[in-house]
């Protein structure tokens, strides 16, 4: 199947009231890795859906190896050799790794008994290649998020397709796993497959991609440009139409005499032990660690969602016990901005106002005991305005806003809550550059106004731009703490070293 090019020629797509794509073209060549870039709303998702047969184009055509093709359904696209790794996971949790990988190969054997040993054998090479490091018969639901992502990729690769499309494949991966994935992608590319790599992480795009197509406002900002000689700034300029303003880290004055929040020899039922951390008012403490190292769980143990198991939590120097998030927010004024926006951060089917207002309902009740829209609006609207949330009305269902706007509402909710300590977990995953910059400014503003912030992120540049101090967490233990000197290369090296030292220690045990 390999060695066929894939062309999208002058494709347009209309939705009621909008032209989502306006004569967009992109050419994927065999043996090349091609990047597709664009801000949220630039038309990337629509183009992906056209390539994968979800939408049919209103104008223009698709060509596989110079022959025109029409996809009436995703099935047609798969048959034509287009394999996709979607951003959302599409695995069957109770099925084994091998069954999930080989699923597409099984569908024409409806009544024949399955030979599980053969399925496991067929899947094994892919599992080894991608370094999934688990038995083929392991149910997928027992895997880590990163491993699941690898299974997803193995499933796509196993189709031996001529086109492999990866939509944000590294969002859930650790740096180590990303390296493994890139090795596999280079391998696949060298076998003559057209690889299309969609990502927000420009560093990765520069590392792995040979050419690039950028979309802006539904049009080509560039088409099939060679990556050679393109800088990060060039890419950003094409994406947002101007140069990116990266505010570097600037040391700030912090009164460290009293800690707003302090953990002393803190242990939790999730597996944390002997954790000592402190953050002062106005300080941003970065908490770096790989996925699965226990960072989110630590936040949840602090706010009372997971049981603690020894040690002290001190709030402004006073020893406190926190039994529930309600106590954390209303008694101790500690808030947690979840990384899982869709399930833990927001109520997607409710309105913008109800989402932003949920933490202030207690205060918004009037003297007759009623909670009116206006009283809630008065408390949250300043924050929604400050964050420049773009929504047709406050009544709008929040699930229909873009990821960046959703995240801004989630932030507005916590700003309205007036917390003294905020634990912010992966604030900018999967959102566009403009919103990301806005949120970074906001986090700095919050700290400057005296909020103590614990920032959890696996985005190294983000960490080094924002954090005053950086604690590194490995396997539910804090393996070290660093002051931030703002120099990216030396800081990132020190952080990686801390993780690595700890990993070596664990292997040694």
């Amino acid at each position: 199947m390999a060695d066929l090019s894939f062309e999208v020629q002058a494709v347009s797509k209309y939705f009621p009231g909008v032209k989502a794509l306006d004569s967009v073209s992109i050419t994927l060549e065999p043996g090349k890795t091609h990047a597709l870039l664009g801000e949220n709303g630039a038309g990337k998702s629509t183009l992906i859906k056209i390539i994968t047969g979800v939408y049919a184009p209103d104008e223009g055509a698709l060509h596989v190896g110079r022959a025109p093709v029409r996809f009436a359904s995703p099935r047609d696209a798969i048959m034509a050799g287009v394999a996709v790794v979607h951003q959302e996971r599409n695995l069957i949790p109770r099925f084994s790794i091998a069954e999930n990988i080989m699923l597409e190969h099984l569908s024409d054997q409806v009544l024949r008994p399955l030979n599980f040993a053969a399925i496991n054998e067929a899947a094994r090479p892919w599992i080894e290649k991608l370094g999934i490091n688990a038995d083929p018969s392991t149910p997928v639901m027992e895997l880590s998020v990163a491993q699941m992502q690898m299974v997803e990729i193995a499933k796509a690769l196993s189709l031996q397709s001529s086109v492999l499309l990866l939509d944000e494949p590294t969002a859930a991966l650790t740096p180590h796993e990303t390296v493994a994935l890139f090795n596999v992608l280079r391998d696949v590319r060298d076998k003559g497959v057209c690889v299309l790599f969609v990502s927000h992480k420009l560093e990765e795009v520069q590392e792995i991609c040979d050419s690039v197509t950028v979309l802006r406002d539904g049009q080509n900002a560039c088409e099939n440009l060679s990556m050679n000689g393109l800088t990060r700034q060039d890419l950003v300029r094409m994406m947002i139409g101007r140069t990116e303003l990266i505010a570097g880290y600037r040391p700030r004055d912090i009164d460290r005499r009293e800690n707003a929040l302090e953990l002393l020899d803190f242990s939790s039922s999730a597996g944390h032990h002997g954790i000592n951390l402190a953050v002062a008012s106005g300080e941003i403490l970065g908490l770096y660690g790989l996925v699965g190292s226990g960072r989110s769980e630590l936040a949840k143990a602090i706010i009372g969602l997971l049981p603690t198991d020894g040690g002290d939590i001190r709030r402004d120097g006073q020893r406190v016990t926190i039994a529930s998030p309600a106590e954390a927010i209303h008694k101790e004024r500690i808030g947690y901005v979840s990384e899982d926006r869709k399930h833990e951060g927001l109520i997607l089917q409710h309105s913008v106002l109800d989402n932003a207002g949920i933490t202030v309902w207690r205060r918004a009740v009037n003297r007759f005991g009623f909670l009116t829209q206006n009283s809630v609006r008065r408390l949250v609207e300043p924050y929604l305005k400050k964050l420049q949330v773009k929504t047709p009305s406050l009544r709008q269902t929040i699930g229909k806003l873009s990821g960046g706007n959703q995240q801004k509402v989630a932030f507005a909710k916590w700003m309205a809550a007036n917390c003294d300590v905020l634990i912010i977990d992966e604030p900018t995953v999967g959102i566009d550059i403009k919103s990301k910059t806005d949120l970074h400014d906001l986090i700095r503003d919050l700290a400057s106004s005296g909020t103590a912030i614990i920032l959890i992120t696996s985005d190294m540049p983000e960490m080094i731009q924002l954090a005053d101090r950086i604690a590194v967490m490995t396997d539910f233990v804090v393996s070290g703490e660093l002051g931030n000197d703002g120099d990216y290369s030396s800081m990132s090296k020190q952080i990686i070293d801390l993780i690595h030292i700890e990993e070596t220690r664990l292997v040694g045990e």
Partner: protein
Amino acid sequence: MFATSEKYREFGREGATDWLKRIALSNEFGLFALIVVAVLVFSSLASGFLSNFNLYLLGRIIAVNTMIGFSMMVVLVTGGLNLAVGAIGVCVAMTCGWLIEDIGLPWYIAIALAIVVGAGLGAINGLLVVWSGLHSFIITLATMSIFFGGMIFLTRAESFREMPGVFTDFSRLKFFGSVSAMLIPTCIVAVLLGILYRLTRTGKEMLAAGAQPAAAEQSGLRVKKLFVLCHVLSGAVAGCAGLMLLARNGAAIPAMAGNLGQDWLLIAFLGPVLGGAVLLGGYVSVLGAFLGATLVSVLSNGLLLIQVGEFWVQACLGLMLLLAVVLDKVRRLFVEN
């Protein structure tokens, strides 16, 4: 700075056309139109449909059916359900009968205590659901049998027939010759529920907790407490419905809602689901549940008047429930695009 403040003036203040569009697209408007059509059809097919007497009968049915629907609706908020509404309703009616006939309490105190018992049975459901972490389907399936069986054991399946005249007088009371007084308690409960969900913190918290428990809890809501409260409310409202049946029958009869109270189940789901309640939790419409129960009552009453057999009416209602669920899906797709 000026530009942003201009931009955000749009927040929330919608124009008249948007408002009209929203009403026309709303589920409640669709139900209202269906009710009008049903009334027109039945009044042309059956001469007695719009007679004063039939309208009075219809009012009584609507009042009870709506109340039964409300008792389910308040639990649908949590994304769960309460199969024991019928059993609780009958238990409350029987308790009231016992308090009056055997204990000799005045009727108003008996009513109040009986409703407290309903709330208590609801609390048992709620606590079991929250503590066990099991789906309310299993819990209330079990308590439905336990409550009903316990009631049969305690009363030896005997009815309480010596009820004071105030019950039957109330159920026979009508205004303008055609409007049943039974609609009064239903309307009061409807208004109270409307206020609860629109204008109180507890109501809004119930909706938030039902829609996305994890997000609600992390935002500082006490989700478990709220869920128990929803079940307590369900028990109390089911009790009100049971007492209305008691008034209609003039007696507390163990079999007044069928075996295990299951005669209520279809009605209990039909009203709120036709009314647009989301079965996954987090959204209900009080007006919709009222209109849904009204449509169901009009259909069953009208079909009986044009002499369609009782079993066909049941089949028809079942069909309606399926249709409502399908229509709901179609409507959502339409609105989203």
